[in-house]
């Protein structure tokens, strides 16, 4: 299929009626909760900026309009542009090739594009791929602004990725229950993760040394 529908009508009509499923088996139209979906398609940003977009236009929209991550924010629980564009991705269903461009080539340049791709991958990909695609960015310490109902806070890409891998709810969305890393290691689906900091035993040792006041100059 070379075209997308410009609006969301068919996407939403396909709810539960055999539209294409995401790679993790979920129906993309119902991954976000109903009240959130309704807030999104009602909001001005969605109507004005998310109509007739394709996978490349997503890049422009993120760069121009995504200044923070978050689900719904403020007293009005307004859906963030970040959340609206995640919903648009659920509608577009971009391929893995495209996601790699968002994550890597685009993600180096635009941190909010990387954050958006990480969020979308967590919602739609199988556990093994989620871990493999997201974990490299536990090394990305760039700052992200995050808005919630409570206000604005600072977070980081690595922290956001960690939230996606370990928390149940992120950005107004209940994440599907993914098997824990150690379970997938036991099943030999995943190799143990190697931290960019190196071997754990060495680290613990060097920490002890630092505490002893010997420092790193040994």
């Amino acid at each position: 299929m070379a075209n997308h529908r410009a609006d969301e009508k068919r996407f939403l009509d396909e709810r539960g009626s055999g539209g294409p499923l995401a790679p993790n088996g979920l129906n993309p139209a119902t991954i976000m909760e109903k009240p959130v979906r309704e807030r999104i398609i009602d909001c001005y940003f969605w109507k004005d900026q998310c109509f007739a977009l394709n996978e490349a236009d997503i890049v422009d929209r993120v760069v121009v309009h995504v200044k923070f991550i978050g689900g719904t924010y403020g007293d009005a629980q307004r859906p963030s542009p970040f959340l609206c564009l995640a919903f648009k991705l659920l509608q577009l269903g971009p391929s893995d090739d495209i996601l790699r461009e968002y994550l890597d080539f685009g993600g180096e340049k635009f941190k909010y594009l990387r954050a958006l791709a990480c969020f979308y991958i967590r919602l739609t990909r199988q556990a093994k791929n989620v871990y493999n695609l997201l974990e490299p960015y536990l090394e990305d310490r760039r700052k992200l602004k995050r808005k919630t109902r409570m206000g604005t806070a600072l977070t980081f890409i690595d922290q956001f990725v960690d939230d996606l891998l370990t928390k149940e709810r992120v950005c107004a969305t209940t994440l599907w229950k993914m098997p824990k890393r150690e379970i997938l290691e036991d099943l030999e689906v995943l190799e143990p993760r190697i931290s960019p900091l190196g071997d754990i035993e060495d680290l613990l040792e060097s920490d002890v040394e630092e505490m002893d006041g010997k420092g790193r100059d040994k």
Partner: protein
Amino acid sequence: MQHLRAIGQTGEVQRATASEVRERIERVWEALEEERQQDVKSLGERLKVRQV
């Protein structure tokens, strides 16, 4: 509205390939770099100009 012209009568929009996505990333990055140097218009205005 300008996007109505872009999608024509069919209500459909053409999918982008991975290489088109990469080109877009490059283009947006360059536009942003230019803006940093010139600081004349906002990126939003620039992208609008390019879309027409």
